[in-house]
């Protein structure tokens, strides 16, 4: 049966156009119940005689509840799915995942093309009413279709829809009533709170007078926002809340071209971090005034805490302007535009980890208690939740989702989702770290594991006879990795050729031989993007058999590899390059320490050692050449823990030591990556996956220059070469001085990112830090998905495989690159958070004195960096209450904080002695406190 759907649509140009679409109504859409006699039950999902049909609002707001296993036998209508998709993408993905989960009985009924449930739009009927009617028609159809065999229940929270359904003879319930009828009181906590507009009665039992007041300004209606954006009075952008000060946020707006600062919760007007918001600029004279306000408000919450030293501009706080302006010289620094949020265009609400604010138990246990949830992520405001299991939750870390935030309440309201574990427990806190950074740590599914080759695996005769695979088992190949490394993805060899040159080979685990495009294994790896290394565990990208055995290039076993082989002159000039799939047999898996010891021990003259020495000589030349080209030697404050094997508690912390052997391996990996990047870009100029590092702008380097100027050091930042040279020249009497300057420089730069070569022009491919025009990742396919991708490109460029279809699809390729960047960043944040967590555990029972360097001056103290432990945090000179009290003043030019009487002063990069101790000023949020000795 053919029907036409007629509707009006606004085109991109803003004109209204009439659209006509055909709809083919079908008779081959089945109800999905096993009990049904007339339908094809091969794809049926519903087994129970009690079937529930969901309304859109239930799916949108109660997805956490739906994911609970108590909810089952659900019909999801296609109109509901469509509307959910338009309203909230992430909920749509979750409900889709539920529908395809074989453990849940969720059935998608395509009612919009079913001949009996198709609903023609009526004259003057709104889209919402039309959908509601379609839902009722479908429910009614189910009731009639299944007749006596099943009981069909419509679950809706729309009062009007429920009334009409009852009139039409459908049994309908609200979700609250339905959950109560199941008889599991725990489930009630999962219910999302209805918004204030829905219930007016509830206000009566809340007697606090402050609640009645309107706390926030109204959000403008969408039509007004669109018009305002069009006329240029509003600006659209993503709100980013300052990690170090939750009362300050930034909106990067294209229409203004610079970042707009938003001070204070009332100007943020209920927007969360990551929301797409519309903002309005405040009048210029209010720009200063707002700042004073923000500092006053800050008292409500805590101040900066001790963190690990940030590694790049992306994690560093941008609070420089605030510190300057409070210092007095208001005219010197141009004020940045500030604004306020007038509406939220798209919410970025998801679930958050944290704990409940401690409170006394209400008298009658078992009843509902209102509690305030404090998120681990400081950028998120407190969230009000209702719970019936308060005493169980008080000392737990829990996950909470946000439902709404109306104008009357200071805090958003949400609902409890699930517990994680006891507060302070290492396992629990690690899990929190993983959830916070969106790391998927669930075990691999059976479909993924089914893609693995049968174990025990070994090189087969087919692999040996494969013409594309070269037999390199005769070569003396060895690997050099950190001690205890199990996922060895690279190995090296170096032999002298008769003509005096060297043949140097980099052999990388041939992961793509096992991970084929389009398989569940590949999809999972692509989703995870990278392995995540925490202090006490590793979250693998590929299942353990692949990571630790089949792909890992362990010693004395035959393994498949993808090799890059150069002929190099003794001057380390590359004479020729070839790429081949290969079979290798590693003869030694060395650690960096072992490799270094072998090279240093002049008595040893075995082949492995001579090869190592030859390689080291070559690597040194290559490194020097790279530095001459302008590669930066950047430094980061990486720390290493010694973990107790029994309790997994940290025993000692120290800076990570870099040896020559590390640099040697790194040098060859860089060279391999560059060679591969050239090869793939040459063959596939528009669909290669490369890695670039954007050149930092002068503005970004400003904090570094200011610090340097204060101590009488001039840095030339005109090019990476100039910067590298001036960094080399920056040596003071303090042995740690140079490293500190390098750390500060690193922090001013953004991170390197993956991109698809077709999206940018060749000059933009440049990698600033390495001073390489082209770069990619090829050498760690076991732990990075980007490398798997590059392996496929390289194999295709050699004609070994065909290029998978993903590469034809530019938007998809771009989204893969974006996901890799996101995962890579999250993985880094997770490992940092894990290090922070272990630092805290370490210092819990060990108050320590240490030497620290001042890195930044603030109006009431300064930020210090403790090199030994790689941590950074504030030291206050004035007590917390008397902020800005005038004992101290800041000398902006000399980057100094001076006591009024001139008796004491601290300047940037000065060495100070501090005392570190774990304190718990707020319950459940232990932090490291630094005090001056």
């Amino acid at each position: 049966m053919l029907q036409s759907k007629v509707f009006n649509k606004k085109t991109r140009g803003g004109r209204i156009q009439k659209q006509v679409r055909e709809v083919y109504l079908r008779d081959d859409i089945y109800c999905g119940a096993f009990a049904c006699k007339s339908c094809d039950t091969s794809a049926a999902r519903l087994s129970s005689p009690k079937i529930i049909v969901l309304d859109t609002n239930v799916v949108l707001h109660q997805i956490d509840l739906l994911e609970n296993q108590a909810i089952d036998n659900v019909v999801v209508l296609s109109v509901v799915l469509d509307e959910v998709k338009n309203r909230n993408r992430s909920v749509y993905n979750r409900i889709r995942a539920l529908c395809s989960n074989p453990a849940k009985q969720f059935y998608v009924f395509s009612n919009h093309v079913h001949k009996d449930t198709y609903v023609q739009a009526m004259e003057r009927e709104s889209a919402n009413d039309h959908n509601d009617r379609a839902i009722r028609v479908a429910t009614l159809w189910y009731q009639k279709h299944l007749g006596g065999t099943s009981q069909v229940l419509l679950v809706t929270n729309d009062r009007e829809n429920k009334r009409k359904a009852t009139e039409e003879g459908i049994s309908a319930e609200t979700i609250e009533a339905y959950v109560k009828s199941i008889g599991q009181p725990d489930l009630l906590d999962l219910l999302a709170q209805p918004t204030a507009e829905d219930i007016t009665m509830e206000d009566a039992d809340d007697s606090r007078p402050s609640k009645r007041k309107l706390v926030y300004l109204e959000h403008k209606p969408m039509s007004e926002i669109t018009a305002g954006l069009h006329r240029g009075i509003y600006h659209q952008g993503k709100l980013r809340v300052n990690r170090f000060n939750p009362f300050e946020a930034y909106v990067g707006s294209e229409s203004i071209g610079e970042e707009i600062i938003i001070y204070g919760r009332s100007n943020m007007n209920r927007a969360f971090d990551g929301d797409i918001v519309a903002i309005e600029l405040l009048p210029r004279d209010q720009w200063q005034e707002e700042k004073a306000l923000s500092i006053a408000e800050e008292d409500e919450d805590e101040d900066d805490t001790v963190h690990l030293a940030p590694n790049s501009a992306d994690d560093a706080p941008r609070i420089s302007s605030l510190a300057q302006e409070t210092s007095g010289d208001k005219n010197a620094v141009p004020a940045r535009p500030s604004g306020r949020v007038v509406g939220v265009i798209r919410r970025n609400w998801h679930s958050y980890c944290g704990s409940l604010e401690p409170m006394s138990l209400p008298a009658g246990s078992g009843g509902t208690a209102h509690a305030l949830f404090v998120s681990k992520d400081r950028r998120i405001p407190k969230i009000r939740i209702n719970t019936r299991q308060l005493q169980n939750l008080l000392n737990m870390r829990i996950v909470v989702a946000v439902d709404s935030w109306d104008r009357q309440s200071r805090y958003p309201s949400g609902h409890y989702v699930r517990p994680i574990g006891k507060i302070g427990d290492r396992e629990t806190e690690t899990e929190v770290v993983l959830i916070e950074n969106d790391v998927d740590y669930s075990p691999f599914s059976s479909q993924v594991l089914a893609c693995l080759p049968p174990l025990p695996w070994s090189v087969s005769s087919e692999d040996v006879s494969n013409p594309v695979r070269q037999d390199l088992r005769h070569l003396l190949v060895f690997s050099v990795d950190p001690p205890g490394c199990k996922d060895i993805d690279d190995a090296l060899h170096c032999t002298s050729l008769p003509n005096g040159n060297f043949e140097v080979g980099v052999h990388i685990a041939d992961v793509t031989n096992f991970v084929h495009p389009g398989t569940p294994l590949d999809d999972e790896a692509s989703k995870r993007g990278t392995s995540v290394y925490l202090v006490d565990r590793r979250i693998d990208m590929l299942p353990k058999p692949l990571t630790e055995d089949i792909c890992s290039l362990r010693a004395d076993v035959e393994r498949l590899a993808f090799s890059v082989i150069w002929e190099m002159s003794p001057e380390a000039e590359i004479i020729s390059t070839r790429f081949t799939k290969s079979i290798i047999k590693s003869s030694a898996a060395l650690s960096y320490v072992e490799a270094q010891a072998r090279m240093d021990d002049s008595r040893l003259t075995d082949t492995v050692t001579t090869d190592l020495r030859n390689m080291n000589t070559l690597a040194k030349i290559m490194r020097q050449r790279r530095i001459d080209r302008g590669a930066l030697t950047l430094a980061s404050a990486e720390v290493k823990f010694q973990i107790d094997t029994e309790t997994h508690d940290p025993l000692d912390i120290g800076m990570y030591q870099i040896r020559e052997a590390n640099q040697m391996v790194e040098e060859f990996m860089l060279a391999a990556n560059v060679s591969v990047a050239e090869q793939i870009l040459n063959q596939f100029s528009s669909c290669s996956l490369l890695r670039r590092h954007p050149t930092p702008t002068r503005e970004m380097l400003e904090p570094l220059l200011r610090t340097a100027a204060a101590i009488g050091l001039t840095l030339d930042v005109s090019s990476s070469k100039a910067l590298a040279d001036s960094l080399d020249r920056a040596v003071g009497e303090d042995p740690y001085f140079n490293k500190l300057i390098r750390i500060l420089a690193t922090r001013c730069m953004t991170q390197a990112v993956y991109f698809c070569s077709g999206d940018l022009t060749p000059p933009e491919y440049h990698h600033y830090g390495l001073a390489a025009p082209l770069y990619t990742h090829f050498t760690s396919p076991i732990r990075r998905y980007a490398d798997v991708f590059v392996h496929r490109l390289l194999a295709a460029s050699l004609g070994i495989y065909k290029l998978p279809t993903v590469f034809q699809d530019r938007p998809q390729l771009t989204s893969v690159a974006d996901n890799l960047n996101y995962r890579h960043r999250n993985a880094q944040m997770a490992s940092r958070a894990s290090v922070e967590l272990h630092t805290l555990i370490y210092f819990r029972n060990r108050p320590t004195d240490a030497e620290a360097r001042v890195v930044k001056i603030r109006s009431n103290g300064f930020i210090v960096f403790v090199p030994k432990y790689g941590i950074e945090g504030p030291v206050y000179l004035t007590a917390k209450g008397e902020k800005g009290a005038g004992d101290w003043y800041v000398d902006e030019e000399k980057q100094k904080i001076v006591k009024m009487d001139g008796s004491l002063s601290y300047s940037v990069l000065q060495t100070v002695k501090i005392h570190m101790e774990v304190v718990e000023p707020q319950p459940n949020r232990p932090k490291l406190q630094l005090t001056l000795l």
Partner: protein
Amino acid sequence: MEYVSPEGLRLDGRRFNEMRQIVAEIGVVSKADGSAVFEMGNTKVIAAVYGPREIQNKSQQLKHDRALVLCEYSMAQFSTGDRRRQKQDRRTTELSLVIRQTMEACILTELMPHSQIDIFLQVLQADGGTRSACINAATLALADAGIPMRDLAVSCSAGYLNSTPLLDLNYVEDSAGGADVTVGILPKTDKMDAKLPMETFETVFALASEGCKAIAERIREVLEENTKQLEYRRAA
């Protein structure tokens, strides 16, 4: 964008291997020697054929041993809903040429030397697949005009979206940017907009060919029905 739902349904309710509704009618322009209207869903094309007749512009004749086939393709200004400029753009010229070459290969031109055949095609309503609809309409009109042909030239498009081969793309699917093949059976005229790997191309091509066969069957039915009508009228 999701063009095929996980349930295997396309935006308009079809499955991947289903065509839109086909309506065909012969003899709609009485002045022409042969004419037809061909509809595939909301795509509607009218074709009129004049000839074989004397060559009007002698200079156009290149070969004296066969008939000259001329084709003019145009889109009605109202065909897409918004106003179009009438100008002969490159797309129109290209389409005219493709259709002309297809029909020329199909018509037994050597039987009609010193003559010309004019095919006029106009798109009345466009909703994807106009190229195919034009070829099908021209075939019907040529048959109506009684012009000898080797076989029925039929055409159907197929594309590849959301990793699924799809038969007979409508406008929304066509403008999604995926690869699509228009296949004309008998004299092959395939035309592609985006790149596809060989294996995928083969499945898409096979699907389009299946579609062509189905269309050929439908066209044959229409023609047989028409012949019956003619027979009946002659008897009367």
